[in-house]
């Protein structure tokens, strides 16, 4: 733990290093062809390929390679890359590397375009890049320094000969003849031959194989066509194939692990990446600044790697960056330049004050901006001051009430609530309202719904693949929701809530929530690993499944190790126990020693809830923040990577620290956020902050989420005596129990409710679309909502009795029910005009209701 914190901190820390302690840059050392210097494969060659774009997905980093030459994507599989370079080129005359005549090497002739190269010229003959490569070839074209440290103990070793038998004969045989029906996703008769577990567990007719005993193995009977079961159904296998299977079962049906050797494990380890300057402050567009990058290896060596690093801007409307770290200011705002070298990633803050280009400096805002009293506001305002942003004014009471009711409880306030709140003259009424809302069942319901999003509560993936089992999926998904709801309701500490999911057995029977693990979608340990990392750490590991993560330090080795923790969990779906003793690295923080019988989730849970964990508490704090501000402090909230730093690190640190100190008290967190000035700002911009979307200088209007649209329309049209039930009866609410039932329905799809089927917060879509507009204007569901409105029927009935209610109060009601405020004079006049031109009051009210449900003010939370 400690190590990882230090490592991450080190990548952003800078101190001045004396020039004589640093090896000069390769562009200087290899400027002359006469140099005697020897480049290193890991330190120079692979990074150079990265910077030149050779190992990008479009070129040789593609999984098919390009022109018969394949490099590992983003270059961290040194062994494979070296093998690819030293192997013969198949498509061309000549060798990729010609040790006797280095200049004749294909890699040099291609990249200088002396021989036709689809990628064109990458550098010129005689350039430092050219000299560097030629020196590497001249000096023997050696690969990366091998790792001589003993590898951690791995799972039971499989005889090399048996590995060959399996890989060359058995695996292809299964793939060609059996996977059609018994592969990864298809389990006819309950049997899957996709992995060892499936083979040994077998299907409806029993285990497919008894290791060591071919004659007792069902598989041999089936392929022998000797009994009732004849497999494959399309025809008997060839006799040599059957003999191969028999031999394989006789030797114990060994199934080797696929990734015995983790790529990227070399003897040379990057300790930190340093950069100068610490921060770039621009004052006018067109201004330039140069970033210098220094790699520091565990050996103590340091080298200027500016010419070998890759650079990227996080926002090219603010800054662009070229090769060798040359940054050019483009516009106002703040962002980062990201540097990649080896598996190091560093982000350098770049900032230009708003209004500084136009010369219209908006006065000295610093004094005003740092004056906040709430700790959140001190951090937010400090950043605003630095950027020259003046925060928007405080929003009105009506706006606040509607906003906080939606964000905190997923619910519109009732007309009575609005009236009471507006009439309240207390200075502390907003704080009181926050306290009161946090006690409501709708708070627990809305945030249980969100936690169901994060954890992937999807009825379809819980149910088995058969359609008949769908209902079971809904039942279990509802139990999942209820389980979380109860805990949010009684404000159980967040770490304890997660423990109940991570270790469902640890609370005694029935108190944990096992369904997270039994989802159909978690077929392989890696699926489970990605799901845990996404749900509880806010990190996306999936890139590292196939190649080095392009924006993070994760390599395939990290991914494989983390996945192995879940091997036994995926196998048993619920209870979990390691089969063998093994040492596994936990995302570069510590090595966990597992004994046979240990539940491998236990050490992960302990590691996560440790206050030093860099992600667990932060990820949740940030997601809750994003629920109130439309953007996270880290945004997207599930992309915690060094390349995507927080917009306000001090703020995230403070909130995380406070959340930990409170004992993972979720309500503490919600209260802090909702009572800050930053949260209570108007959406209306001033001259400075119109373009600010990430520093919380104003509220960002955002479309209300799918469930809230549905519930709000229901509530706005409900009969007077129904209003309370519509708001509080969770069985009737899309953010309550209907959440699971309604997943995948037309209305929910149109408004972007997530399926919860992939590991990405991006699954919930709040952007407006044409179909939404068609829906809210003319969908039968909306038209019926109004036609069947209990409230409008009340008015109709009253009219029939000859007692039409007072139009003024009806008009007030319309606005209060939909946009949670009283109408202004213009609006009142327009409404009266509409009523006057309608045949009945009820009809006029219906038209007005339709119009109000379609206003931006209704559809947006603002």
């Amino acid at each position, binding site marked *: 733990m400690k190590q990882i914190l230090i490592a991450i901190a080190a990548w952003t820390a800078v101190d001045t290093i004396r020039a004589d302690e640093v090896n000069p840059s390769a562009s200087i050392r290899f400027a002359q062809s006469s140099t005697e210097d020897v480049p290193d494969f890991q330190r120079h060659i692979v990074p150079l390929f990265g910077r030149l774009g050779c190992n990008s*997905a*479009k070129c040789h980093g593609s999984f098919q390679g390009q022109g018969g030459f394949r490099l590992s994507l983003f270059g961290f599989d040194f062994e494979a890359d070296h093998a690819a370079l030293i192997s013969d080129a198949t498509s061309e005359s000549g060798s990729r590397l010609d040790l006797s005549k280095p200049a004749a090497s294909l890699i040099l002739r291609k990249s200088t375009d002396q021989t036709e190269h689809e990628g064109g010229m990458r550098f010129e003959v005689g350039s430092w890049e050219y000299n560097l490569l030629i020196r590497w070839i001249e000096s023997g074209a050696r690969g990366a320094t091998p790792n001589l440290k003993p590898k951690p103990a791995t799972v039971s070793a499989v005889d090399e000969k048996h590995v060959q038998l399996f890989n060359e004969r058995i695996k292809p045989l299964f793939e060609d003849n059996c996977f*059609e*029906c018994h592969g990864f*996703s*298809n389990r006819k008769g309950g049997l899957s031959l996709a992995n060892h577990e499936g083979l040994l567990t077998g299907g409806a007719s029993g285990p497919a194989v008894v290791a060591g005993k071919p004659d007792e193995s069902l598989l041999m009977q089936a392929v022998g066509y000797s009994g009732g079961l004849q497999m494959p*159904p*399309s025809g008997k296998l060839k006799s040599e194939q059957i003999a191969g299977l028999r031999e394989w079962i006789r030797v114990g049906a060994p199934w080797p692990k696929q990734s015995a050797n983790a790529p990227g494990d070399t003897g040379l380890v990057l300790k930190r990446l340093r950069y100068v300057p610490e921060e770039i402050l621009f004052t006018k567009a067109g201004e330039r600044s140069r970033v210098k990058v220094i790699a520091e290896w565990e050996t103590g060596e340091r080298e200027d790697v500016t010419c070998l690093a890759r650079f*990227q801007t*996080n926002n*090219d409307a603010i800054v662009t960056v070229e090769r060798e770290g040359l940054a050019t200011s483009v516009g106002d705002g703040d962002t980062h330049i*990201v540097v990649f070298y080896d598996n190091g990633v560093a982000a350098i803050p770049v900032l230009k004050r708003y209004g500084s280009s136009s010369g219209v400096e908006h006065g000295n805002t610093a004094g005003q901006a740092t004056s906040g009293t709430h700790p959140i506001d001190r951090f937010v305002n400090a950043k605003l001051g630095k950027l020259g942003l003046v925060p928007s004014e405080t929003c009105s009471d009506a706006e606040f009430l509607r906003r906080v009711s939606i964000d905190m409880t997923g619910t519109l306030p009732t007309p009575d609530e609005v009236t009471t709140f507006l009439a309240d003259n207390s200075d502390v009424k907003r704080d009181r309202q926050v306290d009161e809302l946090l006690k409501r069942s709708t708070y627990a319901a809305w945030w249980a719904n969100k936690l169901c999003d994060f954890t992937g509560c999807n009825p379809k993936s819980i149910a088995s*693949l058969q359609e008949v089992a769908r209902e079971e999926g809904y039942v279990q998904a509802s139990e999942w929701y209820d389980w979380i709801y109860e805990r949010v309701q009684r404000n159980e500490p967040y770490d304890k809530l997660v423990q109940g999911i991570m270790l469902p057995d640890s609370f005694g029977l029935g108190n944990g929530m096992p369904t997270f693990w039994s989802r159909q979608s978690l077929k392989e340990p890696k699926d489970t690993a*990605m799901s845990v990392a996404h749900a509880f750490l806010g990190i996306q590991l999936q*890139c590292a499944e196939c190649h080095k993560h*392009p*924006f993070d330090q994760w390599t395939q080795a990290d991914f494989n190790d983390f996945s192995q923790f879940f091997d036994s969990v995926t196998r048993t779906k619920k209870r979990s126990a390691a089969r063998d003793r093994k040492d596994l690295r936990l995302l570069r923080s510590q090595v966990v020693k597992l004994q046979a019988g240990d539940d491998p989730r236990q050490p992960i849970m302990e590691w996560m809830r440790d206050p030093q964990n860099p992600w667990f508490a932060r990820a949740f704090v940030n997601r809750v923040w994003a629920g109130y501000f439309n953007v996270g402090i880290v945004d*997207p909230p599930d*992309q915690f990577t060094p*390349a995507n730093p927080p917009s306000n690190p001090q703020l995230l640190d403070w909130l995380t620290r406070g959340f930990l100190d409170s004992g993972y008290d979720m309500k503490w967190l919600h209260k802090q956020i909702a009572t800050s000035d930053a949260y209570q700002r108007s959406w*209306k911009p001033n001259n400075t902050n119109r373009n600010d*979307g990430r520093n919380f200088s104003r509220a*960002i*209007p*955002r479309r209300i989420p799918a469930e809230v649209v549905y519930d709000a329309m229901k509530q706005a049209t409900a009969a007077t005596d129904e209003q309370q039930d519509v708001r509080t009866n969770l069985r009737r609410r899309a953010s309550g129990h209907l959440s699971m039932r309604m997943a995948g329905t*037309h209305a929910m*799809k*149109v408004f972007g409710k997530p399926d919860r089927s*992939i*590991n*990405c917060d*991006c699954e919930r*879509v*709040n*952007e*407006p*679309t*044409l*179909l*939404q507009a*068609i829906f809210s*204007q*003319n*969908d*039968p569901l909306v*038209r019926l909502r109004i*036609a069947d409105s209990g409230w409008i029927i009340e008015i109709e009935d009253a009219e029939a009795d000859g007692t039409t209610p007072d139009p003024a109060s009806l008009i007030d009601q319309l606005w209060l029910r939909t946009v949670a405020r009283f109408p202004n004079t*213009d609006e009142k006049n*327009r409404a009266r005009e*509409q009523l006057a031109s309608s045949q009945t009051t009820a009809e006029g009210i219906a038209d*007005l209701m*339709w*119009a*109000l449900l379609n*206003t*931006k*003010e209704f*559809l*947006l939370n*603002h």
Partner: protein
Amino acid sequence: MQNFTRRQFLQAGALGTGFTLTDYFRLRAAGQNVPEKRSAIFIFLEGAPSHQDTFDLKPDAPAGLRGEFKPIATNASGVEICEHMPLLAQRADKFAVIRGITHNVADHGLAKKYLLTGNKSSQTVSYPEYGSVVSHEFPSDRYLPTYVSIDESFVGPGYLGSRYSALTADKPKHGVPYSVRGISLEDGLTVEKYKSQKKLLDDLDTAFRGFEDLDDQVRGLDRFAHQAYDIISSPKARAAFDLSEEKAAESDRFGKHEFGQSLLLASRLIEAGVHFVGVRLRPAEFDFDTHSDNFSRLRTLLPPFDRGLAAMLDRLEERRLLNSTAIMAAGEFGRTPKINAQGGRDHWARAMCAVMAGGDVRGGQVVGATDGTAAEPKSVGYTPDDLAASFFANIGIDPKTEFQSNVGRPITLIPNGSPIRNLI
């Protein structure tokens, strides 16, 4: 950077399309090579029709594998199809049959995702269906949706984002008045009444007036509200969906079955200017998933398919639209060579077939082949990826187009397939 590209992408796309008509003409005017894009119709034969009983017959297969149907000659030499599709047989010069398509996903749900997107389904990315891609690549029309799905589409817009979703239209039934959810004005609502409601809305929707360009969300709501109104109130969209405008003889030409009526609606929509129509042929009584009674079921299912598709090809040709419309019909996999005890055929992904027509498709030919029992492709075969790549190429969209996805990395449209040689 993933952070920014995503937002940048949203900004570029929030107004309905990433690539506008103006962009298109600007690029063309500048002499850039903008490929001619075509409209397209995808007919999804849900349930997976038996390939060896439709377009890949094996009359010489051994008993127990051999189907009951006979192949018949067509108007294209060397092309033979099932006897229960005589109308298509007379028009074989207009379409190409693709045999020997192969994959290994024999589960309906996952195979549908595969065939409807050209990408094997994944835990980490949801891929867009064909129509959503077209919707993303075409400039949108003010009065019409770009992409209509007849019967609900199965997969959705995936990583492209929900604004590229299909407008869903129910399946029309012969002789029954037809309406479209959200588009048709129902329960006596007149255009005049709707217009007056919209006027009222415009008068009241003032809170963000002057701030329409403030943020993506405000801008999007504003733009789409107007576009929705244009579509719902315009005669153009209503006429496109109004099957009652068809003469009885024309309606009958397509057949009195929902297959034919769906294909008639698809033709009308293409004629009106909709760019992509997805048709999900999935009758309520039973679909192509013939685990039992394969032959009697196909005797019921094939004639309406034959009539509907033949009529659609004729009509599009009569209206000179066949050259500008890419058409594909396929299921999610094929069916077992072996006929089971219930007279059915089970799931079989190792061989299947598809039909393509329109655009640059070279009709009157068979591309690819399977072995003597229709169990495996001869030689390598094609994949659903290749099929998708061919369809996109025929539409005028490069299958290697790279999209900025919502998961923070660029994704190639069809990374693993290439257009089938000699097909186009």
